[in-house]
């Protein structure tokens, strides 16, 4: 039952609307396929989440991705993979404003182990990118792997290409990072944290890091815009870092009293399900987070955790 769809094929297919014609189940109002993009991580149509609790970050990531069938279900030999953590801020790992560096390192390592030809780690931060890469510990983490196939790169301003947002209400087009659009496989590695505008930021909101242009303008109708931007591309795998979560003053944080150790990793392919589960770590549900709710209404995924198969690790 493993159905593999090549990323490029998918994009072409989506553009042509051929997926709609094929009667893809649960087609969203925005014309985007929903449910599981990669059928290998779904279970007869209902999405699957793997949740690892307790243990060190490395073990939790391995446990969660392993429960979904292992990284080789997402990354083939010879693939070019983009790993997209959240490296938004000039903050240290303890401050929980960026993805945990050990989580990123393990994800990259697993891609290499699965035979990836190249693993690129990239983000477009809010503070000075050099400081963010360094302070977050992610640069050192990736470089400590010591494999030239794994690189952490700063976004090249030439490489943002414009994409149409079909049926977009406020945004009709926006620029996206070329390397992400053209990669064979993409892995979203967000951190779960508080956000003063979108309430929480997890996998759906993390798409902001691959956007060009003046991202400030996206905030004017943020919840809707996050969802519409997510119709342009979909990550092949999401590994949500909730080792430490930021519970207030997000997204940048800075105070240790706002940080809570949750020691959780959530892996899945359905961004709405992942974020919906992530919300529970903050004592709320996905429906309390407007953009997650809106994403589910637009058919980007399953918000009702009762309809999700959750594999506890």
């Amino acid at each position, binding site marked *: 039952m493993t159905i593999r769809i090549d990323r490029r094929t998918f994009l072409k297919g989506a553009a042509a609307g051929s997926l709609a014609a094929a009667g893809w189940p649960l087609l969203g109002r925005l014309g985007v396929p929903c449910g599981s993009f990669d059928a290998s991580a779904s279970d007869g149509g209902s999405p699957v989440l793997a949740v690892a609790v307790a243990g060190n970050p490395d073990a939790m990531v391995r446990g969660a991705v392993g429960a979904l069938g292992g990284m080789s279900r997402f990354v083939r030999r010879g693939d070019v993979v983009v790993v997209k953590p959240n490296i938004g801020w*000039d903050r240290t790992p303890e401050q929980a404003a960026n993805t945990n560096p050990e989580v990123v390192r393990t994800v990259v390592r697993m891609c290499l182990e699965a035979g990836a030809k190249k693993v690129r780690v990239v983000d477009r931060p*809010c503070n000075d990118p050099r400081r963010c890469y360094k302070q977050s510990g992610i640069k050192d983490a990736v470089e400590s792997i010591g494999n030239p196939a794994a690189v952490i790169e*700063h976004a090249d301003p030439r490489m943002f290409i414009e994409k149409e947002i079909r049926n977009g209400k406020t945004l009709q087009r926006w620029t996206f990072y070329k390397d992400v659009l053209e990669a064979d496989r993409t892995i979203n590695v967000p951190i779960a944290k508080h956000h003063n505008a979108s309430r929480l930021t997890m996998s759906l909101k993390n798409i902001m890091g691959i956007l060009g242009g003046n991202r400030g303008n996206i905030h004017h109708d943020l919840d809707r815009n996050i969802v519409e931007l997510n119709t342009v591309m979909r990550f092949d795998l999401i590994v949500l870092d909730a080792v430490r979560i930021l519970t207030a003053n997000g997204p940048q944080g800075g105070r240790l009293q706002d940080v809570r150790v949750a020691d959780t990793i959530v892996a899945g392919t359905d961004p709405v399900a992942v974020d919906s589960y992530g919300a529970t770590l903050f004592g709320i549900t996905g429906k309390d987070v407007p953009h997650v709710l809106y994403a589910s209404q637009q058919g980007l995924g399953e918000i009702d955790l009762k309809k999700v198969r959750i594999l506890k690790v």
Partner: protein
Amino acid sequence: MNTDTEGTLAAPRKPGARIRTLRRVSQWSVFLLFVFLFLNTEYKDNDVLPYAVNLFLRLDPLMAGAASLAGRALITLVWPALVLALLTVFFGRFFCGWVCPLGAVIDAADATVFRKTPRGGAVPASWRRYKFLILFFLAVSSLFTLQWVFLFDPISILIRTFTVSVYPAMNLVLHQVFDGLYRMPGPIPRISEPVYGFLKSHFLAFEQPVFRTSAFVGLLFLGILAAERYQRRFWCRNLCPLGGLLGLMGRFGLFRRRITAEGCTRCGLCESNCRMGATGNDVAVTDHGACIECMDCQAVCPEEVIHFSGTEGRRPAAVDLTRRGVLASVALGAVTVPFFRVEAHGKAQDPLLIRPPGALPEGEFLGRCTRCGECMRVCIANGLQPTWFEAGIEGMWSPVLVPRIGYCEYNCTLCGQVCPTGAIRRLPLQEKRKVKLGLAYVDRSRCLPWKGESDCIVCEEHCPTGSKAIVLKEEKTLTQGGEWKTFKKPYIEDALCVGCGICETKCPLTDRAAVLVTSRGETRSTGVLAR
């Protein structure tokens, strides 16, 4: 007649030619060191810069003296200047020929652009006194706390020009060239991109820097080089006050040019090859204040009677000064000061004059600031910019934070690390975070949530203080459509705001931001919010 140039005469058989080669090697190695330090005046994953990138300014006795005088402080940072001063006393004005990176650039311009330019006596010999007059003017005005040395100091000029003009321009050109190649078809990008990648990691700026006054600074610099059209080392001979100071210090140095009287045929080759015009009509007489010990004369002397050594031949030519000129420059140095001090900005400071974190109070700050641009070069967000006249003519090219261009990075202390005179204090991170550069305020008639247009939160999100200095409060607002709706409106917490300006930088309004920073409440003055 001066068509002879260094290259054509360089048959290195004589010992004089060897030492000339040594001098050139010294000049260019120092210049490379200068470039190396310049390129490393940048954040490279180290919160503390590993090199003393400001070495050249701290080596400069003119700047050290003027900053100490005008700033009324013994500035210990500039101790290397003392070393250079002592060396000069013993060895003469060697700095200009062996060390000065501006001298190297001028020589390079000379050897390339003006190689074949016939240059007669277009410039009167008496002009060389101007450098002394400028020096006296600057010394006296510094004594009266007006420090204008930055306008003439060669090291300040060179670093400022590289920072503000040359490097950004070079960066722009290279980016555009490689951008063009990148868009070319076929295998071209495959060849050009690795080169570009190498340049990006070793030479090019992380982001294209932009600076106010860049074209002006660049043109002034071109002027210095263009003056070579009329005379070799025009700048060094006639205008450079550092050269003047070193010349005065080194006049009686032990190491100096001398000529063995017997054997000299008065052929004049040494005179026509002297880049400084340091020999008089009698070639045996040397103006030791002008001689920069480049050793060219020794290399070209066919009789090999010119030597650079100690003891013999102590016949320093008189310094070419008139009493009237000296008195005038001294008087001018004193008299002009009050004119600067009655400029209106002294009473009503420009509210946008936001100084770098750790800057001294304005008076001491301007006394010490060398306008070298090191702080602007190292400023990670390109926020520190040279002033035009916001701080008066006196304060020209001093650093000001322009948040719409770039903000002060909360966890960065680099500007204080590179300041050669301590005009910006070197603060530990914990202390720097507490420094208030100013205070933000919200323009409620433009701010999107305040005027009922949409929610935004960008300023709040970027505010770096742990407990946010920008807080959002949900309140009802009358929209332009006439409905009451709830929006998250930003409020500034004055006690927490450090005036870093990231809110103003990131405010998504395209022209003027709706959240703005002024110098109100800055720590370095009073820290008081109202007067």
